[in-house]
């Protein structure tokens, strides 16, 4: 199945928030087509009677007790914020 440049544009814009040039779109369309082709090939493997694998590790039931741990001081928490207002992260206005 071929991935079209328009599909790449849609995925980039709507799902990944990436701004791509036309040349990048062409490149990615080719790469993604190869990847999807490889997955199609995997799909041909006979899997009747094989249990679906939900997690690759043989581990289960890893829990921690409900004990509070110290949180980051607010200045440290906000240190990476592109924009800070008071003790909040500031982001471009969103209207509900």
């Amino acid at each position, binding site marked *: 199945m071929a991935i079209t440049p328009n599909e790449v544009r849609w995925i980039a814009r*709507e799902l990944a928030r990436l701004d791509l040039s036309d040349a990048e779109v062409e490149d990615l369309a080719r790469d993604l087509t190869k990847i999807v082709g490889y997955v199609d090939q995997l799909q041909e493997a006979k899997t009747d009677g094989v249990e679906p694998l939900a*997690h690759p590790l043989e581990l289960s039931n*890893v*829990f921690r007790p409900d004990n*509070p*741990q110290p949180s980051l001081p607010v200045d440290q*928490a906000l240190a990476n914020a592109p924009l800070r207002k*008071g003790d909040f992260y*500031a982001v*471009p206005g969103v209207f509900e």
Partner: protein
Amino acid sequence: MHVVIGLEVHVQLLTRTKLFCGCSTEFGLPPNTATCPVCCGLPGTLPVMNEHAFQLAMKAALALHCSIARYTKWDRKNYFYPDLPKNYQISQYDLPFSNEGWLDIETSAGPKKVGILRAHLEEDAGKMLHDEAGAGGDSLVDLNRTGTPLLEIVSHPEMETAEQARAYLEKIRELLRGIEVSDCEMQEGSLRCDANVNVHVPQVDGTFVATPIVEIKNLNSIRNVERAIAHEIDRQLNELKENVGKEWRIDESKTSVFGDRKVRRLEFKNKDGAWVPVSKTTAGFDDRFGRTEIQRRKEEASDYRYFPDPDLVPAIVSEEQIARVKGKLGELPEHQLARLRSQYGLSEYDADILVRNGRPFVGFFEAATEVCGDAKEAANWATNDVLSLLKARNETVVEFPITGHKLGEFLAEIKKRKLNKQRAREVFAEMLESGSHAVAAIGKLGIQSVADEGQLLEMVQRAIASNAKAVADFKKGKVKAADAIKGFVMRETKGQADTEVLQRLVLEELAKAP
């Protein structure tokens, strides 16, 4: 016409820490003081599941009669929003930990069983503050709530009236408070509701036209859920009338089955000129005007690209574990209600208020009753004075300075001393203020042991004997003259005589006077 309502309810679980990290879940902390690299979604961190959250969720699911999955896992739901620092929410997609339960509700139309599709665990997002002036200023983000454990309870679309939706929510709240899984405070956001609403309108050929489903988001009070649904039903019927034959047409080519109804969809012409189904959309509810506001209809359905979270391992639940949690469930609210009525002879109304306020509140009432032996009086004080004080003081019954035991002592004391309601309230206020026991509070207020009826009678007789003028006036028809007699006794008792008893005695004795 049939209305179809399904509810998605989110409740915050009563844990001390978040779902995947040790940050506090306490409400009302200063902004961005309860976050860490895990809940902020910084690279290289590893979330670890809170065991208590898992236990509480299981308790809730069992109380909702759900079956518990033996194998459950966590998935990432991917979307971009400034309140979601990881750009995905950890939730459960295809293998939720519980499925298919039900809830019994009661409405004016009688009892009804509402099916529950699933209950699953997920993490909450942060909180955003928007520029209220709408001037395009920045929005502010507080990530304290990010990662707080939520239980999402999804009903089947089986409710048919706004009243049923309200009853369902009230029942969920009563149940989850009762088993101490959540405090379900809608003002604090620990119970939130999204309502999916549409209408099936009968056609001449016996089929029904289904209006597009609207999901009303983030309803913040039970009353608003009811109002929003009522408004949305009207809005959809109007929209249908306005659009059919113009923007919309009924898809005559096929029907789907909903219960015993055959249902047709609506279509509209997209920008390429093809007729396609009118999609589901979301709406907000404007509290001030009591109306639902439709948000933009999108042509593509949201694509959340769920996939298993590689950072979290699955949970495997054993029969023994389920049995253990079931054992800890204790008395479910419906059973508690029946017991309070039969064991204490309470009215359905009183028992309902007690149960609705949760297990600690019922415990408070039962402790008081045990001490004073008067269930009716204990229920009266609990459901009136105590409840309104808890509300005013913004406290839970556990934090309230007067314990159930102290209330019981107080009730026994006011009964023994025949204190009238006003005096009793003064004693109660003093106990609340000083944290003291009833006897100490009575002593501090200088309330003497009040005369019993025999002593009061003696005082009334003395008053009549020494107030010849008042008696004469009374006999001439001046009813108010009796006040002089009462005033005399009140002075003698320092205002502590039971006014009802005194009134009766005065009238009886005046009638006997020559």
